[in-house]
């Protein structure tokens, strides 16, 4: 039977990468002073699994490499070896190396042998304290040295199992059966040890055998049969016809029974067939590189299945009602339909839920990043992760990674000061960078917070003037000053380091975040620290919307953005010459955006402010009132990209298809506010 092992490769890669992440996290969390055995054990287990899997699936380079790691970890686990920072760094390097090896194999590329050797040598130096060249990683030949000795005639075997051999699931009959498959077997049973019937414990074995095995048989084959029970029986094997018979069991009244090949009937299939070598067939099968899979909590799937079950029930109920419909069944129909609506909504929610991943998928790479960078920069930095279990849409998770890396690098490089400077400023020597995620309204907020030196407004301003980004007399609020760092071509670092400022600036970060429908915000205090907050929609596919009518047109306002809707009185309105209209709402003046003017709707009903409605919306801290004809229903809308199908339209974040088939534009409130300010 030959099995295509390639079918298991994808799963193997996935779990190996997961294992490597576990190892990395574990290694980073090791506290040198007080090492938790369970932590080491977890790391060891991950290495062990990768070794086992790679060996089985034929990736010998990987299994050889992991073997050395495993040995090192094993010694740490047993307490035979001290856990040192050096060893941990070597292991971390090896984790990287393994990642590269596995990626190369997955992508069907050559493994970079040089780098592998480098790491393997480092590991071996750590392991043996010597250079690797002397201790080639050869596996010791297994225990039986004399195994290849062949005897032409056969073997005499004296076999007396211990009483409790059966309790390990080993049946002497199996061994007799296997022996008989090797050659011609003559068995002589010794009943002597069998106790009285009344004392007999049927769960114990009291028989012994004298066996004569005739044939051209290698002794290792015979030994192999008894391999598992070495310690559970007395065993003596001698070449047939050899003079030394003293090791045979005490011969005494024996009942002879010749079960010649009796067992063979029971199991004719045990043959020493040549085993088909199953090689890792990485060559032919196209690797599923682009396939993006997602790991889903089984409980989510269960919910989904439940929902589908409910839906099926409702459907069958409705079809029953519909079969012979009479008006007196109208109530039944209505309740069925409302059930259907509820189930559809719940089903939709649980499907969307499947796409939700904990933000820890992104956060998990940062401990390593901070560890590596802070040692490179000679800074002492502690990374605090908060709210790692906050769930975000998979797409958001994937796209969030790069911007966050950039922000954290920036904090490390420019934010947190050198230890000496920190002490001089009266701060603790170790700086803290906090990555925090939480939900707020329909958004997820991710904050990168450091307790470093903060942004220097004067310097930012001077720099911006020097670069010609602003005029000398431009007046900027604090917020606007901070936002200068998002402008293209702005970099305050005296020289570009390889840590931050690799050519992609903060402007790219902001663009990326905005393309996700999000926004980025800076709060900073000189000498105290900087917080950069990213606001992102929870999901990019579906949202709760409020549909509004402007003439014949329908627009969708994200429900989370709406604060209230009011009828305004003429007395509340102020007109500022050349700057549009504002209205006063509880001591606050808000600009009014006339929707029909912005979107050029001709069929508008209400042109006087008192005739329509004003929807007060909040777009990332900026409030304004949208002047519309009417509010329609609230509904969940599926977002379709306008950019992909048409082009980017200012003030509009996408479009959706309404129940009647018509298209409604989804408003981008911050964009709209910007638009109205121009």
């Amino acid at each position, binding site marked *: 039977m030959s099995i295509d092992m390639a079918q*298991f490769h994808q799963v193997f890669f996935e779990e190996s990468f997961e294992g490597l992440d576990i190892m990395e996290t574990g290694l980073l969390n090791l506290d040198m002073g007080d090492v938790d055995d369970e932590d080491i054990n*977890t790391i060891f287990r991950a290495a062990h699994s990768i070794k*086992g899997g790679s*060996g089985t699936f034929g990736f010998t380079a990987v299994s050889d490499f992991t073997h050395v790691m495993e040995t090192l970890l094993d010694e740490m686990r047993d307490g035979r070896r001290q856990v040192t920072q050096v060893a941990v760094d070597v292991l971390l390097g090896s984790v990287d190396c393994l990642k590269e090896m596995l990626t190369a194999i997955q992508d069907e590329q050559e493994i970079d042998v040089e780098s592998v050797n480098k790491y393997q040598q480092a590991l071996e130096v750590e392991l043996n304290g010597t250079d690797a060249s002397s201790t080639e990683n050869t596996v010791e030949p297994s225990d039986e040295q004399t195994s290849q000795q062949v005897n032409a005639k056969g073997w005499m075997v004296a076999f007396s199992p211990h009483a409790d051999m*059966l309790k390990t699931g080993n049946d002497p009959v199996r061994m007799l059966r296997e022996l008989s498959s090797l050659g011609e077997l003559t068995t002589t049973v010794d009943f002597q040890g069998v106790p009285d019937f009344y004392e007999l414990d049927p769960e114990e074995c009291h028989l012994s055998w004298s066996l004569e095995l005739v044939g051209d048989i290698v002794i290792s084959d015979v030994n192999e049969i008894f*391999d598992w029970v070495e310690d559970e029986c007395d065993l003596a094997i001698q070449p047939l016809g050899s003079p030394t018979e003293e090791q045979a069991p005490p011969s005494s009244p024996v009942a002879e029974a010749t079960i010649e090949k009796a067992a063979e009937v029971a199991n004719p299939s045990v043959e020493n067939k040549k*085993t088909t070598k199953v090689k890792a067939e990485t060559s032919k099968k196209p690797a599923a590189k682009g396939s993006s899979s997602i790991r889903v909590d089984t409980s989510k799937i269960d919910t989904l299945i439940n929902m589908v079950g409910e839906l099926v029930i409702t459907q069958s109920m409705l079809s029953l009602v519909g079969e012979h419909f009479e008006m007196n069944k109208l109530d039944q129909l209505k309740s069925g339909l409302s059930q259907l609506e509820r189930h559809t909504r719940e089903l939709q929610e649980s499907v969307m839920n499947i796409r939700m991943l904990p933000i820890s998928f992104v956060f998990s790479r940062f401990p390593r990043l901070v560890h590596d960078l802070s040692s490179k920069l000679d800074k002492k930095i502690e990374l605090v992760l908060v709210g790692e279990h906050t769930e975000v849409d998979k797409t958001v998770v994937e796209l969030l990674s790069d911007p966050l890396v950039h922000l954290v690098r920036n904090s490390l490089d420019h934010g947190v000061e050198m230890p000496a400077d920190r002490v001089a400023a009266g701060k603790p020597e170790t700086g803290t960078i906090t990555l925090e995620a939480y939900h707020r309204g329909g958004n997820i907020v991710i904050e990168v917070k450091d307790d470093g030196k903060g942004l220097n407004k004067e310097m930012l301003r001077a720099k911006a003037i020097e670069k010609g980004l602003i005029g000398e007399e431009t007046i900027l609020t604090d917020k606007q000053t901070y936002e200068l760092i998002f402008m293209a071509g702005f970099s305050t670092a005296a020289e570009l380091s390889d840590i931050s400022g690799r050519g992609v600036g903060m402007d790219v970060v902001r663009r990326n975040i905005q393309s996700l429908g999000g926004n980025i915000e800076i709060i900073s205090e000189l000498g105290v620290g900087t917080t950069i907050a990213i606001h992102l929609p929870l999901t990019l596919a579906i949202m709760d919307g409020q549909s509004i009518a402007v003439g014949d047109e329908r627009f969708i306002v994200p429900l989370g953005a709406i604060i209230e809707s009011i009828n305004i009185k003429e007395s509340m309105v102020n007109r500022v010459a050349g700057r549009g209209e504002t209205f006063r709402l509880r001591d606050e003046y808000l600009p009014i955006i006339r929707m029909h003017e912005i979107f050029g709707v001709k069929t508008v009903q209400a042109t006087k402010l008192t005739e329509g409605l004003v929807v007060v919306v909040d777009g990332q801290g900026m409030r304004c009132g949208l002047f519309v004809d009417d509010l329609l229903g609230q509904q969940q809308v599926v977002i379709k990209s306008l950019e992909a199908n048409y082009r980017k339209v200012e003030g509009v974040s996408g479009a959706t298809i309404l129940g009647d088939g018509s298209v409604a534009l989804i408003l981008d409130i911050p964009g709209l506010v910007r638009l109205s300010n121009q």
Partner: protein
Amino acid sequence: MATILAVDDSASMRQMVSFTLKGAGYTVVEAVDGVDALNKAKLQKFDCVVTDVNMPNKDGITLIRDLRALPNYKFIPMLMLTTESGMDKKQAGKAAGATGWIVKPFNPDQLLKTIKKVLG
């Protein structure tokens, strides 16, 4: 045909073992660790248990010891999947009541041969 409980925390190994045994006509139930395996073993009787040794929650050796204590599992064959380096594991496994072991890395044929050996 016999029913086999295959225990491994690694999904790829579990799939490989399961696929191989199913291909040979056995019924296979998978478990992800010792705790899962013990629970499943209490719900139905298996004719053979194949378990990895290094697993979270409950390792293979403890699993074997716990299973042997159950009346249904006194005599059934239980095999450990262990690595070459794990000689001491083999001893510990035997002491816990393991029937034997299959040395990793192994190929499907070796696995099948061993299973046939113990199931007769």
